[in-house]
């Protein structure tokens, strides 16, 4: 009783009390929110999935070229290595949201518009490609050069070495690296809500955070966490299989 009376005397507490009651009274209206959540989850999975596959593929290519052209390696080529290396180092440190905006003209050229899910997926794919290029290169560098030498000594071509030695030998760390990238891409989907891309992050901000509806915010965050956990578990499982232990 006493605490209640003290609360009414304290303006700050009053605010928090009203906030509490607001969120309680705003208890989630599942009729309206349920379909929104499903749609948003679908958008996030689609955006993240496409960015991961497309970006991951081009990242693998760039990473392989970076590794192979490195001085002393199979297809050493200082010019290609330096250009690619500088390009990756230029793109990666640019803050994501600034990159998305700066990419606008190119996005318009490729996708046709600079806002929306497609535009966001395009920007995310590019960032994912550059991020995974470095990731792939770092994992390939850890492969014992002796194994590559052995394959050369058996007469394998560079392309065969890529397919049968480099990728299979680095598969487990590559899977874990791509899992890390997947989580990063899910994080990016939350930010591209800024350019009207929808998704779970957008839902949490628009329907939860900005309307002081903490219940919705928490539910959406919980869904994102569950999604990330699932991806991580899958990645760990596949990596363990690839290690043959």
């Amino acid at each position, binding site marked *: 009783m006493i605490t209640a009376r003290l609360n009414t005397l304290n303006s700050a507490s009053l605010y928090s009390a009203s906030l509490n009651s607001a969120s309680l009274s705003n208890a989630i209206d599942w009729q309206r929110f349920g379909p929104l959540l499903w749609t948003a989850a679908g958008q996030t999975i689609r955006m993240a999935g496409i960015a991961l596959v497309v970006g991951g593929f081009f990242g693998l290519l760039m990473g392989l070229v970076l590794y192979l052209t490195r001085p002393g390696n199979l297809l050493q080529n200082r010019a290609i290595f330096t250009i690619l290396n500088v390009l990756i180092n230029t793109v990666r440190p640019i803050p994501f949201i600034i990159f998305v905006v700066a990419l606008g003209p190119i996005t318009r050229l490729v996708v046709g518009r600079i806002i929306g899910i497609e535009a966001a997926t395009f920007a995310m794919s590019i960032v994912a490609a550059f991020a995974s290029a470095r990731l792939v290169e770092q994992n390939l560098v850890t492969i014992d050069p*002796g194994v590559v*030498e*052995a394959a*050369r000594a*058996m007469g*394998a071509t560079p392309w065969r070495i890529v397919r049968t030695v480099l990728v299979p030998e680095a598969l487990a760390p590559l899977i874990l690296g791509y899992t890390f990238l997947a989580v990063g891409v899910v994080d990016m989907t939350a930010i591209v809500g800024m350019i009207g891309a929808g998704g779970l992050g957008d839902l949490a901000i628009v329907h939860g955070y900005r309307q002081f509806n903490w219940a919705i915010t928490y539910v959406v965050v919980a869904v994102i966490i569950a999604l990330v956990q699932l991806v991580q578990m899958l990645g760990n499982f596949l990596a363990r299989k690839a290690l043959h232990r």
Partner: protein
Amino acid sequence: MVHESLASGGALPQGGLPKDGLPQDGLPQDGMPPTPILNEPSPILENLQAEPIISFRHVSKIFPGSRKRGEVRALDDVTFDINAGEIFGVIGYSGAGKSTLVRLINGLERPTSGQVIVDGIEVSRLSEGQLRSIRADIGMVFQQFNLLNSRTVAGNVSYPLEVAGKSRVERATRVTELLEYVGIADKAGAYPKQLSGGQRQRVGIARALATSPHILLADEATSALDPETTQDVLRLLKKVNSELGITIVVITHAMSVVRTACDRVAVMENGKVVELGNTYSIFADPHAPMTRKFVGTALQDKPAGDSLARLRNRHPGRLITVTVADGVASSSSSEIFRVLGRHAVDAAVVYGGITEVGDRPYGSLTLELTAPDAADIEAAVAEIAMIAGVEDLGARSSSARVGVRPANNLAHLRVPRGIA
């Protein structure tokens, strides 16, 4: 300076024969045209079964320096031949250039100058693409095995067959055959990480033999293995050599490997071949200081340093070290003891070791000689020196001690040194 040792008993090293204008030591002189006569071997060489399959002609390899370190001359004007069907050893400390040398044979490295001729083809002139087809004919085994961890044992052995474009059925048959040959047929489905070092190297050897090569390069193939496994693997290599007739080049820093496996050996130091000859003569009669060092570490049959000091302390008499060998530079031990008996000199073996090199006895014995008359000892030593290598270590102090039979004069040993 290259010493070419000749053994009286063994086959003549190919380099010792006059051949197409080459000087007696087998090294073409500067300015003389190299002689890749591999397609038409001389009848003399053929008779001796000393047909070169790999030839190095004035080969040098320089690794360019960087800002941090200067250039490295890994090989410096190396010229010698490896004969078809032999097990050839290349021994040297790390950095002597032996790994670079072996990588020139299958073109993993290219010489800065000079020629490398394998099976009549100058590999040092081929493009990377042309080299690939040659490499199927040259198997290679590595110190760290270099197996693919992502593949099973069978998958690893199958790899070179895939590269060679063999069908699935052919590969399966060949893999089974190879795994049985190297004695690990039961491990076909295992992954390399689940195997011991010796088993992994057997996989490495099976893989190297998959495409039926004529040459097998073993780059420190036993250096990561324990002594017992090393012997197993060397036995396997000898089997490969004798049953399949494959020429094997063994790179090693262990003289024991040379002793067990090699027919001939080249000793390398600072990118140069400092001595070359058949294994027995290298052991029995080493010339270059580096060779003596290697032979010494392998046998440990001569007292030196601390062990010599302890020996002198215990044995006051005249000490000599005689080399025991099979007619090369020294006589057998029985002849030595016969001489001592004739001069009525008592000999006690106080140190030494006799071992086998290429199926023949080799080693040395350190003897303490005692006789009533010091002159007998002098005469005996002089006579032994004519039939065997003798290293005279002298007596402990004054000559007074020489000629005293310890058996009759045990009291004498207790006399303080200065007084006697």
